[in-house]
Structure formats: C-alpha cells, structure tokens
C-alpha cells in the first residue's frame, strides 16, 4: 500500500513540482498517474522510492513513513521500471534479472530458479538467459525490464512510462500481457503515463494531474462518465463513448444463458463459425460490438473454456451505455 499525505515538492531552484497531494494506492491495485508532461507525475512516483525527497508531507510505504526507512533497503524492496528500460548492456539477460536478488544476497540456486520462473512468466524461452540485451527486440527488452523489477518479489512496483518507447502494436500486446501477469502477482502498482488510453486500460484508479495537482482521482469508469471539470473532459478527448466500451468487459454486460433459450434461432453458430462468431467474457465491449456488427445474427454467444456462458446483443451494449451515461 502507498499513501501520499499532503505532499509538496519544491526543487532547490524554487520550481514547485507538486503541491499538497494526497492519495492512496490500495494493496494489490494499480493506480495510474496521468497528465501532460511537467505535471509532476514522475516526481510523485520518485518520492515513493526516495529518488526524490518531499519538501513537506509524508509518503507511507506499507504503513511506514518512508523517511524512516533506509534508502537502499527501501529501493531493493520496490520494483522499478523506467521508459528507457535501463537494462545493463554488459550483463546477460539472466544477470540483469538477477540484479536485486544478487544485491540482497540470495544463494545462487534460488537466483537461478527465480530467473527461470520469471522468463517463463514473461513468456520468454530460457534460451534468452545467456543473451545480451542488445541482441533483443524492443518488446523483449521491455519484458526483461519488467522481469528484473519483479525479481525479488516486491510488494510494490513503480512503472514510469514502461511501454512508452514501443510501437503501437507491441505496446498493445505488452499491456494485455501485463494485465494478465498482474492478476497472478497481486502487486501494488504505481504507473506513470501521459496517455489517457493507457491509463484507462491499465488502472484500477486514475489520478489525473495538472501542473502539480491532482484534478480527479477515480476509477476509469467514473472518470469517463463523470469528468470533474473541463480539464479532465479535454484530457479524455471526444470519443468517450468508445473509450467506455474499451474498458468494459463483456462479462459485465452479457445475459445469462437461460434468458435466451427461446431466441436460439437468432444466435450466431458458435461451434462451426470459429472464434469470430463468439467472444470471450474477458474481451472488451468494444470488440464485442465490432463482432456483432460484422455478423448476420443479432446475438453473439459468449464462450469461456469451450462452453457458452452467456449472450451479447446490441441492445445490451446500448442499455449499458445509457445507464452509464445517466450516472
């Protein structure tokens, strides 16, 4: 858990980076700090592992004022991923991942096991272990960066524009992968980005920054349906409806199977049509609507592990959307 309590940071030259900021990142959740450049989001993140020190206020890490903790020890218990990745080019992938375990003195066999485990988690074969970072693609390097940050099993992960330097397709894939990984590791994550789309996708909660202050701290759905002021509205952009669809899962909207027994004639044939005539409950409503529009039937079966667990129609999407808008 991370708590900011009335935190202000003024640089020695008098620039106010952030002013009187308070927010809490609950254990096991992801909070995304988002805002234009120079708004203080990266500074806020660096206050957590004391790469920056607050001028006023307190940052609590798992309930303890982080000023009372030893800087070096604190940083070794917090995973850190940065945009430039910062892999060590003179070390192999395995050595890179093992950095923090080495620093805190794990024995070699435990380190080896952990490296194997992380390579597997990142969906990289163990052949990569002895390769050097420069031999890898941008996406692979970024995966190694995340693996390295997770190596010593930190409770907290700080990620500063981790997918910023990648092409859109790789970025999208890594975001999806990371969301899946996150479900397994249950780490408290503070994530910094300038992209509202990435924030909506990755965050359980989002803090929207504007020059040193948090304008709104809410769930993605709440931010989309109830933007607090004009700044937030502008920041979200015009296609809110579309974004709303992209952050909502089919599971939240679909009908249970029994409701549709009678309408079976309308249902697209899931079995012989392949994946395009069905959808997974974890897919976004955006993808659901796209598929509904591209088939001849009005109802799309929702399939999980080979079984139909529900149905999705255009009406569902519309009524979900209307109710979200009214809130």
């Amino acid at each position: 858990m991370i708590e900011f309590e009335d935190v202000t940071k003024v640089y020695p030259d008098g620039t106010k980076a952030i002013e009187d900021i308070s927010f809490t990142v609950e254990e096991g959740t992801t909070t995304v700090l988002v805002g234009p450049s120079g708004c203080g989001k990266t500074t806020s993140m660096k206050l957590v592992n004391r790469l920056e020190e607050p001028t006023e206020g307190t940052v609590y890490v798992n309930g303890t004022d982080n000023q009372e903790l030893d800087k070096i020890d604190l940083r070794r218990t917090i995973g850190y991923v940065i945009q430039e990745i910062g892999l060590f080019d003179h070390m192999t992938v395995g050595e890179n991942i093992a950095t923090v375990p080495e620093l805190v003195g794990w024995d070699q066999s435990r380190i080896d096991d952990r490296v194997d485990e992380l390579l597997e988690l990142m969906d990289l074969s163990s052949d990569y272990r002895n390769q050097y970072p420069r031999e890898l693609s941008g996406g692979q390097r970024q995966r190694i960066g995340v693996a390295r940050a997770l190596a010593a099993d930190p409770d907290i992960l700080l990620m500063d524009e981790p997918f910023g330097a990648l092409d859109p397709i790789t970025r999208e894939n890594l975001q999806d992968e990371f969301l899946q990984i996150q479900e397994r590791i249950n780490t408290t994550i503070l994530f910094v980005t300038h992209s509202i789309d990435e924030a909506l996708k990755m965050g359980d909660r989002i803090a929207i920054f504007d020059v040193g202050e948090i304008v709104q701290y809410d769930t993605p759905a709440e931010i989309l349906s109830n933007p607090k002021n004009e700044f937030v509205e502008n920041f979200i952009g015009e296609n809110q409806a579309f974004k709303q669809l992209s952050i909502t899962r089919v599971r939240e909207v679909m009908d249970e199977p029994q409701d549709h027994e009678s309408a079976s004639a309308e249902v697209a044939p899931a079995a012989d049509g392949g994946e395009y005539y069905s959808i997974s409950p974890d897919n976004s409503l955006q993808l659901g609507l796209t598929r509904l529009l591209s088939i001849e039937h009005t109802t799309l079966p929702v399939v999980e592990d080979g079984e139909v667990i529900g149905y999705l129609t255009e009406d569902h999407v519309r009524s979900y959307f209307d109710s979200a808008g009214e809130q």
Partner: protein
Amino acid sequence: MAGVVSTTLSGIRYLLNHLPEFWELLAEHMVLVIVSEMLAVSIAIPLGVIAARHEKLKSPILSVGNVAQTIPPLAVIALMFPILGLGFLPSFVALFIYALLPVMVNTITGLESVEEGTIDAAKGMGMTQNERLTKIRFPLALPVIFAGIRTSTVINVGTAYLAFFIGGGGLGAWVISGINLFNMPQVFAGAISGAVLAISLDLILAAVENRLGSTGPASAQVAA
C-alpha cells in the same frame, strides 16, 4: 621504392649482425615503456574515477592533463634532466607523465558516457554509489578506458626513443646515434623494431581487453 626495400633489408641485416646489443636495447626500451605505462594506468584510472565523481575536480584535472600533453615529449625529457639528472629515472618519470593523460581522459569520458537511464535504473533498484561504479559504470566504460590505454602505450613506445638523450637507454641509441653518424641501416634497425614492439603491445592489450570482455561488453560490441 627499390631504395626503401634495400635500406629496410640492410636494417634487418644490421639487426641480425648485432643481436646481443639488440636484445639489450629492446629490453631497456620495454622496461621503460611497460613499467611507466603500468604505473600511469594505475594512477590515471583512480584519478579519472575521482574526477568523474566530483564535478569540481573534473575541469582542473582535465586542464592540467591537457597542458601536460601539449608539452612536446622532447621538452618533457629535457625538463627532467635538470631536476632528476641523467639515466633511467628521469626518462621513466617523463614517460610516466606523458602516458597519464590519455588514460585519464578516457576514464572520465568512458564513465560519463554511460547512459543516464542505465544509471537511473541502477539507482532505483537500490545500488549504492560504489555498487553503481563497480558493477555498472566501470564495466560499461571499460572499452573506452582500454582504448586510452592502447593509445597511450603506442605513443609511449615512440616517446621512449627520446630517453637516449638523457641516458635512459633503449632503441633510441641506434636511431639517434645512427642519424648522427649517417648510418642508415642502424637507424632502420632501431625504427623497425620499435614499430614491431608498438604493434605487438597493442595486439596484446586488445587480447586482454577481449578476455575481460568475455564477461562483459565485448559481446555487446559484436551485436552493435
């Protein structure tokens, strides 16, 4: 062309006819170069590390070093004479001073050229300042530092010829007295063997660098 070939051949013939003397001069030359270089490296690298760490020390150290390098080698040798007299020691000191700068400059540049993101990551992962230096910055700077050592060694082989002027011995004995006596085979014998020495030392250092690099940047260079 034919003149060059025949003079070179006559140089080699001269060398073969004076082998005992050749070994003696070569040994003196090598001791001068290698010992002064080793001492220079062992002092220049720590100085470079200190300078790279302290912004205030960096420019004085670099400017003193730069000034030292603008003094011609002959002048350094000549300057040593009134202070330390004749013989091995003044020659050695002059070579040492002359070898210092390239190594130091390259140490500083090498350490400074490590990417900011890399250092940031190391810091954020909880490395102390010393750990960042020994595990990250120094290994990454090693190819640049080695380039400095190689340059300075090759220059050093050339400068060591001048040691003969103050009685420091070495291959300069053949070259300088050969010029005075207009004994071209003798000049060539001295010059060629120095050139071979410079090339050999450079190759040896390259091999050492690769060896060290097997756990480090060499493979990065291959991939780059």
